[in-house]
């Protein structure tokens, strides 16, 4: 029954897409379309979370490959991810009811937005390789169309090229992976693949590599992440939120589905690529985020960081599962899914905030913002909440998942393999490093954009955003708070998935007094967000009370003190790049080559001194530039054959003929 409802509403989403084409010219179109999307997403969400028996529901249609058909399956994992996708979808639609009103060319967005939602849902439901890949590419294509919505900007066009190329690369990789899994007989349905006996370990290793390439390129795993910071900012903000907050999660779903489910029992070394890549991704992602001045680019890079964290957790789960340590495996797996959920919440919220700022000021560059906390206080508050959450600070939800990951790491000394013994601590340090850098990054983002004084007239004239957007954002923040204060319920909802995919799960959290969570045992570690939160609130009020009793309440406004220097005007504020400079200097060169140019005119010269920073992305320079060069070179060399004389062409044919005849002549 839930599956039927789900499929019907997905069909309805496609219908809404068609409606979008029809209504495109109409003024009220956007409200109608987004409203419908909101309703359908809510239905899908409910259908996903409504309690069911543990057995998976399946359905199949005579579509796709004729002799296989299209299979759909709703099991615990897909239900969890469906909930995430449609929660994000609902939030984005609600936000877009208000946000979409500012869109210049709705006709380039309305048809694709519902289709994009439908595509993501289909990926999660697909139960055979063909349907999976079709849905996967469907998702990529529709989001690509959305990225190309503002196509007059050359930067966006470039983003479109890079995005779709990387997406197709990923699809090709997944396609080969499925080819290996299905074997030459072509048993493409996941059921067949599960039943199939799995070949030698090199084969499964190859599949793992291909899946890392395929899912990783979609999720933004280093070094396949380059499209992400280009494409996510290019799209309209509610779409960026979906791409960053939700689509990357779909990619992670793909990874889990193939590696934990289809690929059979893991071997311990499978865990090493995800662990290593995850750690590297987290570090590079957050370091690059810290130096961005484009708010949406910054958010995109931070998405990359979070993806890295998730992959680390999944790698741990693999390692534990391979060694038959059910309980730790369950812990790591739960941590991964928990973080997936959290990130989908606060990343969407952050992009919504960025979109609100973009609408209010027309600026994405934080260097030209500032003081927005005065002009759009509600947005500022919600954005701040999301910043706290993503910086993994208690008592919000980001901390809980990161805490669980650390707990899982603390269990890993009992892993027998030496390689893992050496790898895991390093990964743990990388995680800690990225977490603290993340805090710095978001202090910078919020502090420069929302605090201080307005750096441009655009920022001065900003207005608070509309109620639709605010309600969407508040809803998300509320969920962040809930997930942070009483995580036990969420953990218990993940439990069945963990049981099904890694064989173990955390102890049931429901019964524990005071709603606190206990990963393994009370004596090892426990955390109670609610209590900590209440404590802080209580003691804050207590302190305020004491001060009120003992001290004076007198206060007056005056010019800023600033060590007695007269107010030097807004330009003298600390800028984003100067804020990032210490980190750029100390850690930056891990991720990129940053060179500072200081041009100091000689004494007596009245020119202003100039300071500039040029930043080279190591990944881009190291991996992609050579590839592009090679392709261009080959194209250039081969292109000469286009200008031969007819003799030249005849010569080619002649040579081929003679060569083949020689082969025939010497053939035994």
């Amino acid at each position: 029954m839930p599956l039927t409802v789900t499929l019907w509403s997905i069909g309805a989403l496609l219908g809404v897409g068609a409606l979008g084409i029809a209504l495109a010219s109409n003024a009220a179109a956007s409200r109608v379309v987004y409203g419908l999307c909101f309703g359908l997403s809510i239905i899908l969400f409910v259908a996903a979370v409504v309690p069911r028996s543990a057995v998976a529901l399946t359905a199949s249609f005579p579509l796709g490959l004729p002799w296989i058909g299209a299979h759909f399956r709703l099991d615990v994992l897909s239900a969890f991810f469906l909930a995430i996708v449609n929660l994000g979808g609902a939030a984005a639609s609600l936000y877009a009811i208000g946000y979409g009103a500012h869109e210049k060319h709705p006709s380039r967005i309305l048809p694709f937005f519902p289709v994009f939602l439908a595509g993501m849902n289909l990926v999660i439901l697909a139960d055979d390789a063909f349907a999976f890949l079709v849905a996967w590419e469907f998702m990529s294509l529709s989001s690509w169309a959305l990225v190309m919505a503002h196509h007059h900007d050359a930067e966006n066009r470039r983003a479109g090229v890079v995005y779709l190329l990387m997406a197709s690369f990923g699809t090709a990789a997944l396609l080969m992976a499925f080819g290996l899994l299905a074997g030459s007989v072509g048993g493409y349905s996941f059921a067949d693949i599960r039943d199939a006996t799995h070949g030698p370990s090199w084969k499964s290793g190859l599949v793992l590599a291909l899946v890392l390439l395929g899912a990783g390129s979609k999720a933004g795993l280093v070094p396949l992440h380059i499209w992400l910071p280009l494409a996510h900012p290019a799209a309209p903000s509610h779409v960026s939120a979906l791409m960053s907050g939700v689509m990357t999660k779909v990619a992670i779903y793909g990874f889990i589905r193939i590696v934990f489910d289809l690929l059979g029992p893991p071997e311990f070394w499978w865990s090493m690529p995800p662990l290593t890549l995850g750690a590297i991704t987290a570090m590079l992602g957050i370091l690059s985020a810290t130096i961005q001045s484009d708010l949406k680019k910054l958010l995109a890079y931070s998405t990359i960081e979070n993806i890295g964290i998730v992959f680390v957790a999944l790698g741990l789960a693999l390692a534990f599962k391979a060694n038959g340590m059910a309980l730790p495996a369950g812990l790591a797996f739960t941590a991964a899914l928990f973080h997936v959920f959290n990130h989908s919440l606060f990343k969407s919220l952050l992009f919504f905030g960025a979109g609100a700022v973009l609408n209010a000021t027309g600026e994405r560059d934080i260097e030209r913002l500032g003081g927005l906390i005065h002009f759009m206080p509600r947005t500022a508050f919600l954005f701040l909440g999301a910043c706290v959450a993503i910086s993994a600070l208690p008592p919000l939800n980001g901390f809980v998942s990161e805490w669980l990951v650390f707990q899982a790491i603390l269990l890993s000394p009992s892993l027998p393999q030496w390689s893992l013994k050496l790898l895991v601590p390093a990964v743990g340090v990388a995680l800690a490093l990225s977490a603290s850098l993340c805090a710095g990054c978001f202090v910078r983002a919020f502090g420069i954009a929302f605090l201080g004084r307005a750096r441009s007239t655009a920022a001065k004239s900003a207005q608070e955003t509309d109620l639709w957007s605010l309600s969407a954002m508040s809803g998300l923040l509320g969920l962040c708070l809930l997930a942070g204060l009483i995580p036990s319920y969420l953990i218990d909802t993940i439990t069945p998935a963990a049981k099904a995919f890694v064989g173990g799960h955390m102890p049931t959290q429901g019964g524990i007094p005071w709603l606190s969570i206990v990963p393994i045992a009370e004596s090892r570690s426990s955390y109670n967000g609610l209590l900590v939160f209440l404590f802080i609130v209580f003691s804050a009020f207590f302190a305020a009370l004491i001060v009120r009793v003992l001290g004076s309440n007198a206060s007056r406004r005056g010019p800023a003190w600033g060590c007695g220097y007269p107010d030097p005007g807004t330009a003298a504020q600390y800028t984003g790049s100067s804020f990032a400079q210490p980190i750029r200097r100390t850690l930056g060169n891990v991720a990129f080559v940053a060179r500072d140019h200081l041009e100091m005119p000689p004494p007596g010269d009245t020119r202003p001194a100039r300071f500039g920073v040029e930043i080279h992305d190591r990944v881009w320079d190291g991996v992609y530039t050579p590839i592009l060069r090679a392709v261009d070179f080959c194209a250039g060399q081969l292109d000469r054959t286009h200008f031969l004389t007819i003799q030249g062409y005849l010569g080619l044919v002649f040579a081929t003929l003679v060569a083949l005849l020689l082969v025939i002549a010497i053939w035994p």
Partner: protein
Amino acid sequence: MALIYDLAAQSTQMILVLSLAPLLLGFTRKVKARLLRRRGPSIFQPYRDLLRLMRKEVVLADNASWLFRSAPYLIFAATWVAAALVPTFATGLMFSWSADLIVITALLGSVRFVLALAGMDVGTSFGGIGSSREMMFASLAEPAMITIVFVVALIAGSTQLSEIAFHMLSHVELRVSYGLALIGLVIVAIAENGRIPVDNPATHLELTMVHEAMVLEYSGRHLAVIELAAALKLLLYVSLIACIFAPWGLAPHGADLRAMTFGAAAYVAKVAVGGFLLAFFEISTAKMRVFRVPDFLGAALMLGLLGTLLRFVSGSF
């Protein structure tokens, strides 16, 4: 009955740390002065300062926002809670299980987060400089702290401070990783509290200052609360070191009043020693340039990592 007893013990600890914090500050200053052959202010001077600040009116910068005004209380509250969760005279207090060592670290992280934002709120160049440097130091100090937590947790098999203290008490043994963790923790403590050689709490108009730069715009009661929070933080780290590496005299869970008073006495003694050592260290070193600090903290990080690796490679639990 037992509940009330536990509650009492817990609240005693909260009051204790709150009242002891300024004293530690004053004591350290006094010792420093003495070591420098000065008389120095009385060790109760910090209390007086706090009271005077509270009575003064607050001068808010023109574009200070609600964040600026609420930040001090948040900072104070979070620090206080964190400090109250570290066993001082007794382990296994009522709420100690509601947060483990990682949570305490993270709570301090939130404090820093709010403080850095408050520093940027008014929009002067000093606040920004302070925040940016604070975050840079934190970006190394926090992972260092986490690695130290790893070491300790891997030794004790738990991240619960009470459990750790208990474990340390029960099997006293010398391990290399202890030493590494201790040194690392001391370095982190110095950096986090902005003491010499990382920062100089006694100066105000110096462009290398960090913590003082962030709170530059604060005045009156706000400043008072922040200063108190800073004092609490210092005490927290001292008692943390004491609880992990010198857990002697800690009263076990549900101990009677005598044990507790004994524990309290022992605690005060430990704090005094800590304060003395701190003062001695501070007068014997000079402040370092800002961009040398990362190396200083990096050392802590490396020590922590080394310890963790040792623990991973040698025994499992």
